[in-house]
């Protein structure tokens, strides 16, 4: 049975599995017998890279079918500082999993910004999870945050740009409708500050976000990058989500009490 390698972003981990990405996503979110659920997000990786840190040599020995022949669903290879040790060239498609196990596959594309928005809101997903208001566009934001010569930086970054609607260009007056973020008034303040003081490009809105990502708030897509390279995984259009990927989309919109 083929062994796949997955880079989980939430939580950060490297996992070997005999399941396909769709099967793995479903399993990862809802398990098999236990009544658990949880949003997940992972990249499929090529298995062509080597790493002293990640100890990939004995995966075949560790990831074996169960005694009854069923494929091994997950074998954790590493759970700490995984992201920084995975080379960008090994990263393939991104899979977004809803908390009840619906999986959406996103493919990589060239990033183009058609919006000309002055301000942006970035939810960092790994390795740390602050919510950042920024005047930088995604490539510049990625480059800045992964500049390891700077004291506040990470070697590699996964993030998503979130919708700001009218606030992106008029933070003082635009309505807050349909924006479900924490500390919304503080966020408006951050955006106003960014507009007034262009010298400071980033402001922290929330130090560390604990909640799941509301997929509907994704403005354009997901990003992963280091200081050299950035990959962009665009979300399908709303029309496509409501038509082609309806089951995933409806699941992504479902809301319970205890979030």
């Amino acid at each position: 049975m083929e062994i796949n390698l997955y880079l989980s972003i939430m939580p950060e981990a490297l996992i070997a599995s005999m399941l396909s990405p769709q099967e793995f996503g479903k399993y990862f979110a809802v398990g098999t017998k236990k009544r658990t659920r949880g949003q997940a997000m992972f990249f499929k990786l090529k298995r062509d890279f080597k790493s002293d840190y990640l100890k990939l040599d004995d995966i075949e020995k560790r990831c074996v079918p169960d005694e009854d022949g069923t494929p091994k669903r997950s074998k954790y290879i590493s759970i700490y500082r995984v992201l920084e040790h995975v080379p960008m060239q090994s990263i393939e498609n991104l899979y977004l999993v809803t908390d009840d196990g619906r999986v959406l596959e996103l493919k990589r594309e060239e990033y183009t910004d058609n919006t000309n928005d002055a301000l942006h809101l970035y939810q960092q997903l790994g390795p740390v999870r602050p919510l950042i208001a920024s005047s930088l566009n995604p490539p510049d934001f990625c480059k800045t945050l992964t500049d390891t010569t700077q004291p506040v930086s990470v070697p590699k970054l996964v993030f998503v740009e979130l919708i700001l609607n009218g606030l992106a260009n008029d933070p003082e007056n635009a309505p807050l409708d349909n924006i479900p973020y924490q500390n919304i008034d503080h966020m408006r303040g951050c955006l106003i500050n960014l507009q007034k003081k262009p010298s400071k490009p980033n402001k922290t809105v929330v130090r560390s976000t604990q909640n799941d990502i509301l997929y509907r708030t994704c403005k354009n897509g997901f990003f992963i990058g280091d200081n050299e390279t950035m990959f962009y995984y665009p979300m399908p259009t709303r029309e496509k989500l409501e038509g082609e990927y309806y089951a995933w989309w409806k699941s992504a919109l479902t809301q319970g009490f205890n979030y």
Partner: protein
Amino acid sequence: MINGIFWTVPIASIIALAFAGLFFKQMMKNSEGTDRMVTIAEHIRKGAMAYLKQQYKVVGIFFLIMTLLFSIMAYGFNLQNPWVPFAFLTGGFFSGLAGFFGMKTATYASARTANAAITSLNGALKIAFRSGAVMGLVVVGLGLLDISIWFVALNYFYPIEIGDGHNLVIITTTMLTFGMGASAQALFARVGGGIFTKAADVGGDLVGKVEAGIPEDDPRNPATIADNVGDNVGDVAGMGADLYESYCGSILATSALGAAAFMGNSDMQLKAVIAPMLIAAVGIILSILGIYLVKTREGATQKELLESLSHGINISSILVIIFSLGILYLVDIENMMGVWGAIIVGLATGTVIGKATEYYTSATYKPTQKIAKSTEFGAATVIISGLGTGMISTTIPVIAVVLGIILSFLFASGFDFNNMGLGLYGIGIAAVGMLSTLGITLATDAYGPIADNAGGNAEMSGLGEEVRKRTDALDSLGNTTAATGKGFAIGSAALTALALLASYIEELKIGLLRIGETVLEFSNGTNVNIATATLTDFMNYYEVNLMNPKVLVGMLVGSMMSFLFCGLTMNAVGRAASKMVEEVRRQFREIPGILEGESVPDYARCVEISTKGAQREMLLPASLAILVPIIVGLIMGVPAVIGLMVGALVSGFVLAVFMANSGGSWDNAKKYIEEGHLGGKGSRAHKAAIIGDTVGDPFKDTSGPSLNILIKLMSMVAIVMSGLTVAFSLL
């Protein structure tokens, strides 16, 4: 000799049933769609019928016991009209039959509506609405048929041309007792249906949406089918039985009041008795006309869809106003313009209550938007503002009913507050006017669950985006009509209960005569012949005034009953829902692959749990509603019973409006946020709104609507048991 024009009543009832049959046949000619759609529809149909079968078993036992009791009272102790056991049975039978036909049609129509939505919004609207019209027409058709049969049969045994008008009083008061059968059936349908639907909905959502995180109408949720079944048993069978009772109750109470008001003028007496039946008959024909006027264009907006339904109802109402004047002219009733004025008042009162309900529950208006705004501060403020808005929302309906009572009384009595007989007749006529277009207004109510189920079927069958958009549009329209329908049901129940309250005195008269009393002996030594005693004589004789502690005690008990009943039904939902939670959890735990969509859940088990829960839980509140008026009557007599009826009416009416509107506004506040306001889905505001909506579920779908029946059933029990009360009361 029955007036020739009377025969239009049974003819109208047969026309109603014929059109119901025609609409049913037309609906059945449409395809149910793909195999998957047929399977889902079959699951729901089977579940709904399994529920009805179980309910009819319980109700059957209850009816058997009550019929035996009435027979003993009637034939053993001469405390009861000998026709009561039969009238009770037919009332219950026809009410149950109306619910059965309505639900059968609804469960056949949902998949067909979804399938029609594949190609056309108008086609889907027509199927859903005309299937809803089957319910509306069956209710009015069976109601008038039952009334006609009894009127003709009793006329055979008590010929109206002899007896100096007394026979017509006997006929109308006897017919009134079949309302208790209808009320009892309605109570079981409404309370049982309400508990069923919310147990499935809340229980399914708590595990499905909250724990497992799966969306509504997802086939992986074992409670999904039970939830869809619940829409039918609660809002179709329950609402149908409820309004069947209001419809018949208002006509019969008005006829009884007419017979009493014109005692001694047998010609006018007969006219007053058949006038409400004729107005109802005209209403049937005009409702059918209105049903044919409901259509829309492809891609219609919500506003246009609502306008298309309103168009049918408005045209029917306007025509009822015009034609009822013609009917009254033909009948040549005394104070024709005054009685006509009472009809207009009734229709206007119904419209005002409907509009007020829409204002307080629709997210288009400020009250619901304010509740939505309060979600930003958490769940507690949502609950507080929903409760506050619900309480404030009682103002307009209460003022509408107050004005309706005063104006209809004044119009019919010729602006003479002392002319009690005609004034009360006017109030009854106002209730008849309000319910005259029931054929079409009930169609809009029953349409709601059909559209809702069609959406569920489209969802579970994985139909395309365009289809879902169409069924969503129809479903959203159904939510609006359901809220206004509930307001209408409450308003009509209040007026009907008031007419029943006045009719109670007529029943007392018959009860006293049956036990051999002939005169009312007053403490000042004066005597009044019972046969000719006025309503005021009876009120004086029984000392029905606010200084009489029996009246006050009765009022307090009546008020308490409304709250007790609400509390019991709400807790019943909580208990039944918890059983559903356990079952859904069990299935997720024990049936591997449900969440992955690889195995089919045991839907039938969830339907069974909801059914059993509903049957078990409805027994206590239902028994209390029947026993309390009997016990109060046996201990404290007539004044306390009248106090009880008044207490239950005033508190029940206001409480019902409050609960229905609070629940409706919480529901729509959540939908308002889901449309993208205040942070939209997933925001803190949304989470708070979900809690408000869940609290509001039993408010608007179980306890609130059940109060309509409580106030009518307690009045009916008091009426039927009046013989027992006058013969055996202790105090």
